[in-house]
């Protein structure tokens, strides 16, 4: 390495004026150094890991945090091993994966539509998955039972979410996809799907309704390793695609024409990213039911914590995980009755978003 290369290595200090974000260079790789964003992401990752361990530690048979971590590292006692790995790990891991998937999915849809309202909840994915799941639970006998028996409720919900997401996307298509039209059509389709779900619930047998209701609130109860495996590999593959395409996001935030001017094939990039977002949300819904608010709130909160003008991908995913596992922990422990996680995410997520909006308004007013 020559002296000049040494000079360039590490943090390039930008001139005092203008103050640009400095660059970091490691061999062939270079990127913008945003210390605050990195710090926020690290803190979120640490917090998510802590809550993850806590979620495993707490239960009818409490295990100390240090013993949980020891077991995770493969150095635990046999009895801990069983409780941690076989009984509690699937639930905690499902929470982690679903949270990350929802957070990233929301960050993508909000970025693509350039609108904070555009989340998988609003774009019809969750409601479509719910309608299909409720249909399979309530309409007994015949084809429905056969479908439920062969592909399983989760997979059917996944297909329902994917199908509805694609339907909304193609209905919103008119010489490209406009964010506002995407939201309007998403809201309409959501309303139709919810009406369908309600109709199915009203006309169904009361025992089936109870089962369907439990699924509809969103819950991590009784997750098995099998379901976790599917969700894990599915999300991982999708996140890798998102990571490769995310580089194109920076110009996409400036609108279609500007992005095209900067050499981005925005129709293709957007289709790939939206498909990933729809699939991530569908995977999450099939694993935990339609957990509300995480995909809407996590990117918005992450954006404000990280002081970014647009939803940061990694931080949104980590915040989604933190929110989901944290809510599940609260739902199981803090309250006298055990609640499904979806009730708590709505109760925490909604007010927090309102608080952030109010704070931002107050600041602007000064």
């Amino acid at each position, binding site marked *: 390495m020559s002296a000049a290369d040494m000079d360039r290595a590490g943090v390039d200090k930008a001139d005092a*004026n203008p103050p640009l974000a400095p660059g970091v260079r490691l061999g062939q790789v270079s990127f913008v150094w945003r210390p605050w964003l990195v710090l926020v992401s690290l803190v979120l990752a640490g917090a998510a890991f802590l809550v993850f361990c806590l979620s495993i530690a707490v239960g009818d048979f409490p295990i100390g945090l240090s013993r949980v971590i020891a077991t995770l590292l493969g150095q635990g006692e046999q009895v801990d091993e069983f409780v941690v790995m076989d009984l509690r790990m699937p639930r905690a891991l499902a929470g982690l994966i679903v949270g990350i998937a929802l957070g990233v999915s929301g960050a993508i849809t909000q970025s693509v539509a350039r609108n904070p309202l555009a989340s998988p909840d609003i774009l019809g994915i969750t409601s479509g998955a719910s309608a299909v799941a409720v249909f399979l639970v309530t309409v007994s006998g015949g084809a429905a039972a056969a479908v439920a028996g062969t592909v399983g409720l989760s997979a059917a919900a996944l297909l329902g979410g994917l199908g509805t997401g694609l339907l909304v996307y193609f209905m919103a298509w008119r010489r490209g996809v406009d964010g506002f039209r995407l939201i309007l059509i998403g809201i309409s389709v959501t309303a139709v799907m919810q009406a369908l779900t309600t109709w199915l619930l009203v006309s169904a047998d009361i025992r089936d309704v109870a089962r369907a209701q439990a699924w509809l609130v969103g819950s991590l109860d009784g997750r098995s390793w099998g379901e976790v495996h599917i969700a894990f590999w599915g999300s991982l593959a999708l996140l890798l695609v998102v990571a490769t395409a995310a580089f194109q996001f920076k110009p996409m*935030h*400036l609108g279609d024409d500007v992005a095209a001017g900067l050499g981005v094939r925005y129709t293709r990039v957007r289709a790939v990213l939206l498909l990933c977002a729809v699939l991530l949300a569908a995977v999450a819904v099939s694993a935990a039911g339609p957990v509300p608010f995480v995909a809407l709130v996590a990117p918005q909160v992450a954006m404000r914590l990280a002081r970014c003008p647009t939803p940061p991908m990694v931080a949104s995913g980590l915040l989604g995980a933190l929110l989901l596992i944290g809510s599940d922990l609260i739902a199981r422990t803090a309250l006298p009755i055990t609640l499904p996680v979806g009730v708590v995410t709505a109760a925490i997520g909604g007010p927090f978003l309102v608080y952030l909006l109010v704070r931002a308004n107050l600041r602007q007013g000064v």
Partner: protein
Amino acid sequence: MVAQFITETRTEVEDVARLAARGVTVGYGGRAVIDDLDVSIPPGVVTTIIGPNGCGKSTLLRTLTRLLKPAKGTVVLDGEDIDRLRTRDVAKKLGLLPQAPVAPEGLTVGDLVARGRHPHQSWLRQWSSDDAGVVERALAMTGVADLADRPVDSLSGGQRQRVWISMTLAQGTDLLLLDEPTTYLDLAHAIDVLDLVDDLHESGCTVVMVLHDLNLATRYSDNLIVMRAGSILAQGHPRDVITAELLYEAFGLQAKVIDDPVGDRPLIVPIGRTHVRLEPVTDPLAK
């Protein structure tokens, strides 16, 4: 590649068009807005496309920048069919500022202008010292370096437009296409932006823009393209092109063309109906 227009002298041959449309037909759906049109953009000068609403000005600009694909004909950039070039490679040669772009709330000026470097970056190489240098020069050239830390949405309309032009400059091109850069600006800010365009022209840029204000177009461009109903009515230096007859033919506007008391270009004085001192004006074409 760094911004050549800032660092190097231009190497282009003067009489070769940088950008040209050859027999292009463009439309939305089945309706042709532009039908079999030929035009070439001379290098090193400011070319402005004028014409009445709906005549296809913006459609032509969007076609020249590959935002619209012509149904027939080709657009040629530096001798090559623009449709055959990779869109990233086009972005390294041709900068585009669309009509009324909107930045995400809270995005800083420095960050916006830095995004102009996108065509030169890759997944692995997302930011380099080259990029930093070009962005700093682009900020300085447009006079917005002091604002680099400010959110774009906190700026005035004129400053904002300077910032967007700065972003297209950061692409490192010397060919800029601006779609109505003065829309929504008051006259003082419009002059400010057009003075910047003139600075860019002085430094060797080729500029193509669409303007609504005829007098500003006349004052600030060396080459006017006058359009009507999807075809070109006249093209050339404002002194040669702007006549009362042409204005009537293109716009249906009755106007008097006089010597500009402050500039060396013609000045258009629309006649209209009320508060007119002269004797009733006759149809200029009836003479």
